């Protein structure tokens, strides 16, 4: 079951977003209960102050949070990512973390710092941390920094 929730109200803030979320679930409560055994993925994106919050999905069955990394992961984007990822880790019962680099074509050492920081936040739960869909440039960064020794890496198929 996929639930696409869009909140187009600018600067809605978290409370409005959660209210919409709960409202959607309440309406489908009967249906939702019957489908509990299925993997539930929520694709959520919203506008806040003109900036799109990063895409992510939470795979409830596995307690896995998949975060879509930004196109250019520099210090500026790392600060945004840190704030939003920490919010998501608090919001969901996250056990494992997957960084999806499918959109990412640039990464510097600020990106390394934010990835390691998120790993530390999740490690205590006993889950795994993985990086997927790395292109050649991002793979170089991972190799140079030794990040592939800290986390599992699935490379992009050429």
């Amino acid at each position, binding site marked *: 079951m996929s639930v696409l929730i869009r909140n187009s109200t600018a600067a809605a803030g978290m409370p409005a977003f959660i209210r919409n979320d709960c409202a959607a679930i309440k309406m489908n409560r009967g249906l939702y209960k019957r489908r509990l055994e299925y993997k539930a993925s929520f694709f959520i994106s919203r506008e806040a102050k003109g900036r799109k919050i990063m895409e992510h999905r939470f795979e409830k069955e596995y307690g896995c949070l998949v975060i879509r990394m930004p196109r*250019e992961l*520099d*210090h*500026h984007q*790392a*600060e945004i990512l*840190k704030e939003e990822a920490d919010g998501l880790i608090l919001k969901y019962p996250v056990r494992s973390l997957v960084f999806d680099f499918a959109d990412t074509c*640039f990464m*510097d*050492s*600020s990106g*390394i*710092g*934010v990835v*390691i*920081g998120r790993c530390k936040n999740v490690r205590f739960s006993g889950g795994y941390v993985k990086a997927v869909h790395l292109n050649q*440039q991002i793979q170089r*960064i991972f190799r*140079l*920094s030794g990040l592939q020794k800290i986390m599992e890496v699935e490379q992009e198929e050429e």
Partner: protein
Amino acid sequence: MEQVKNEMKMEFLASSMNEGFARITVGAFVAELNPTVDELADIKTAVSEAVTNCIIHGYEQKEGSIWIQCSTDEQQVEISVVDTGKGIRDVEQAREPLFTTKPELERSGMGFAFMEAFMDEVEVVSQPGQGTCVTMRKTIGKG
């Protein structure tokens, strides 16, 4: 193709919003030398590291200006990134991989290591209380 010497200088606000701007402008300037995709990525990453250091360490995220001077001569690129911020007390220690004075900001301490890995030469001149100048050189097409 005739190679000519070229030079540019720019000044911008030390804001993280301008990190991408710095990468793009330096990238556009060196594109004249027909770098490979990897060489261009290397230069942009090194510039990004230097500019980020100015913002986080030089000005500690307060107001300030960053100057970038870039020159090309044949296939040689020289990029200088300058700030008038805090300066570095111990340059050798700062250049050590994984060393950082700001672990609370989740800094990896790999900025200089990346600059040195991606550029042929990195020179750091700094005076505490006055500022820092990082000069990087690379030869395009060296392979």
